[in-house]
């Protein structure tokens, strides 16, 4: 069953996007990822439409809160007061930001030994940055060959924001001029397909769906066929949220992955793991289990517009070498930003 959803007035207009200098990067050092809006120019009367400047404002706003609770306190501790930095307090602040107790101790220990000429702040900042995976260029879902679609599998535990993220990704790549097709492979949760259809409508993309309860692998299979037939560039597959401890459900996910590999040999689908920014230390176990099941190629860190800190990301990137690709900073369709590690760490200190 195919449902066609399209909004023709969707148009990219990069020129409107450069007039809002990002301050999230901090200081005079411009950080490209945050300076440049992701995509722009949805029709103005759509309340969900992206507006230039929103993205920066939201991230700035989001990080403001993050900073308020976390890094500004850290700065206070790290300020070169009479007694030097209060390392215990630094450790506690990192722990409070969900960086994790063991890792926080390690970071502090290494920062102390570093004796950074730039002072304690530079030392902690450098240690945090060193935990993150070095990135190449901008992230792009790739296709195996000309005329064949790139595939993005969206996975994660229940309630992290997978469907919302897909809506945002679909809008983003549509605005870049790609033809996106969504696969509604969350056939388990009540009304998940309806939710995806609503997002598809907002993003102006097509959806391949089966009836609730259908085999998710079959949905993905059909979506790939449909994408090939219609010449779509990109298939984004929604999957049901699943706790990483349920091995039968994780097997189901591996099966979906195998279907993609079989249908599009050499396609190397992108598997994005959607992680709730408020998640604590369990985030690492989650990421490991999903990595084992489908081989993660990236992470989307959602709900960063709350007071959440997302500190578990440091442990995940360090242990699994899977980089965060995007951060979700709001409920609107434009509220998805590329994650830039330098800008992220720098912005936290700003």
């Amino acid at each position, binding site marked *: 069953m195919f449902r066609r959803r399209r909004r023709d007035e969707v148009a990219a207009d990069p020129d409107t996007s450069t007039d809002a200098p990002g301050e999230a990067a901090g200081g005079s050092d411009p950080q490209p990822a945050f300076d440049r809006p992701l995509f722009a120019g949805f029709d103005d009367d759509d309340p969900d439409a992206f507006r230039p400047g929103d993205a920066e404002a939201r991230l700035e706003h989001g990080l403001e809160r993050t900073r308020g609770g976390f890094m500004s306190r850290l700065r206070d501790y790290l300020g070169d007061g009479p007694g030097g930095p209060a390392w215990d307090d630094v450790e506690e602040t990192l722990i*409070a930001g*969900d960086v994790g107790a063991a890792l926080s101790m390690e970071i502090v220990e290494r920062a102390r030994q570093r004796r950074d000429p730039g002072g304690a702040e530079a030392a902690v900042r450098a240690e945090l940055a060193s935990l993150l995976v070095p990135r190449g260029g901008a992230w792009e879902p790739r296709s195996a060959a000309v005329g064949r679609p790139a595939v993005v599998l969206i996975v994660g535990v*229940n*309630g992290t*924001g997978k*469907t919302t993220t897909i809506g945002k990704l679909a809008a983003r790549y549509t605005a870049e001029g790609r033809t996106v097709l969504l696969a509604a492979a969350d056939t388990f949760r009540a009304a998940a397909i309806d*939710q995806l259809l609503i997002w598809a409508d907002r993003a102006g993309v097509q959806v391949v769906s089966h009836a609730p309860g259908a085999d998710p692998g079959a949905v993905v299979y059909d979506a790939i066929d449909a994408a090939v037939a219609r010449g779509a560039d990109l298939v984004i597959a929604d999957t049901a949220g699943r706790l990483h401890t349920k*091995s039968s459900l994780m097997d189901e996910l591996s099966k979906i992955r195998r279907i993609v590999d079989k249908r599009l040999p050499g396609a190397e689908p992108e598997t994005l793991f959607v992680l709730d920014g408020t998640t604590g*230390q369990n985030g690492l176990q989650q990421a490991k289990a999903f990595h084992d099941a489908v081989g993660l190629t990236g992470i989307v860190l959602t*709900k960063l517009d709350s007071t959440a800190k997302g500190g578990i990301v440091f442990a995940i990137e360090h242990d699994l070498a899977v980089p965060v690709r995007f951060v979700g900073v709001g409920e609107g369709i434009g509220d998805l930003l590329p994650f830039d590690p330098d800008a992220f760490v720098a912005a936290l200190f700003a």
Partner: protein
Amino acid sequence: MFDSLSERLRKTLSELTGRGRVSEADVDAAMREIRLSLLEADVNFKVVKDFVGRVREKAVGAEILQSLTAGQQIVKIVNDELVELLGVGDRTFHLQGNPAVVSLVGLQGSGKTTTAAKLARHLVRQGRRPLLVAADPYRPAAADQLETLGKALDIPVHRAPVGTPVVEIARAGVDAARRLTRDVVILDTAGRLTVDQALMDEIAAVNAAVKPIETLLVVDAMTGQEAVNVATAFHDAVPLTGLILTKIDGDARGGAALSIGAVSGLAVKFMGTGEKTDALEVFHPDRLAGRILGMGDVMTLVERAQEHVDASQAAKIEEKLRKSQFTLEDFLEQIQQVQKMGPMGQLMSMIPGMGGMAKEAQAAVDRGELRRVEAIIRAMTPRERRDPAILNGSRRRRIAAGAGTDLTEVNRLIKQYAELSKLMKQLSAGGGRRAAMSGLVGRR
């Protein structure tokens, strides 16, 4: 559930238990481990500080240090403190009022809609007549989700056209309940980011309009240090009356949600233990503390058994066990009944001393071992099931072919059954539980 915390605490404490006398340095080492353990379990760092302080104070008392059972005493202190940490506040689920209004609030994705359906089902089982109200007009298809769940449970769902203000939806829901003679209204409110003042004002307005007797905060067990701030923010907006802890069937240690109690004085009233609508449990702090420490949770197991196992049938089985007439047919029935009670790993983690085996048992189930056992028994004739002694080589080969497995598997099952019937006899005379259970899940 809470596997890793219980495993680590058990490890730390068994080092203590193993040595009899402990020095102050030993206590310090144990406290460091407990601190780390609780922090990695997402217990709020301030709560951890207090907790460890209290345990340490009690543990280094001279009286205890001179005692030979110092290790056990520290276990007891930790357990008592955990129970205290988990057991604050009023855990009664209040349902006064006609209709009684129960409002579910929480962050996005914490599981409010699923929990609303679970709670409604729980109430039906108690003889109440709940009405579900879809008061989340923001998340796409949230009302559809609740309606689908309600339909599956045969519980009515009140919903309003898109654009209806939330306060109106809530009021109309209460009116609808009166009209339909439903005595409990469950409000599924929109997920919120705590920082969103407009939405916080909105739930405050809903509360003022329909005056819920219970306003329960739904908390994801995987939440990190932020949980305490979240609870505080909601508590400031509306007077919360308790918590529901969700997704506790994963391996999240759930510490942050537990520490909400320590900071806010709010009690956990229910726990969500699975995706299905019957996976909701009443919260018992002493049981959970015991589970955290690997001391088991027999009470929950017994309750589940009572709910799912036919009493007369159980009596029959017991009788057979005593008279050593337990056949493979009964064995098959037992396997099916146990599976009705819940995931094997979860069941195992409730049995004292078997926390460590829970994972293995669940893995065995997930590998399909139980299903293979079922297949083998089903491939037998009724006579063979009643009297496995007649199973000669030719019969065994036939069974293996019929069950789609090989001869070694069939032989293993028959051997296990023989061991099991022997152990069952011992068990009915007391003891031998661990060995009997390990036979049941086909441990190699």
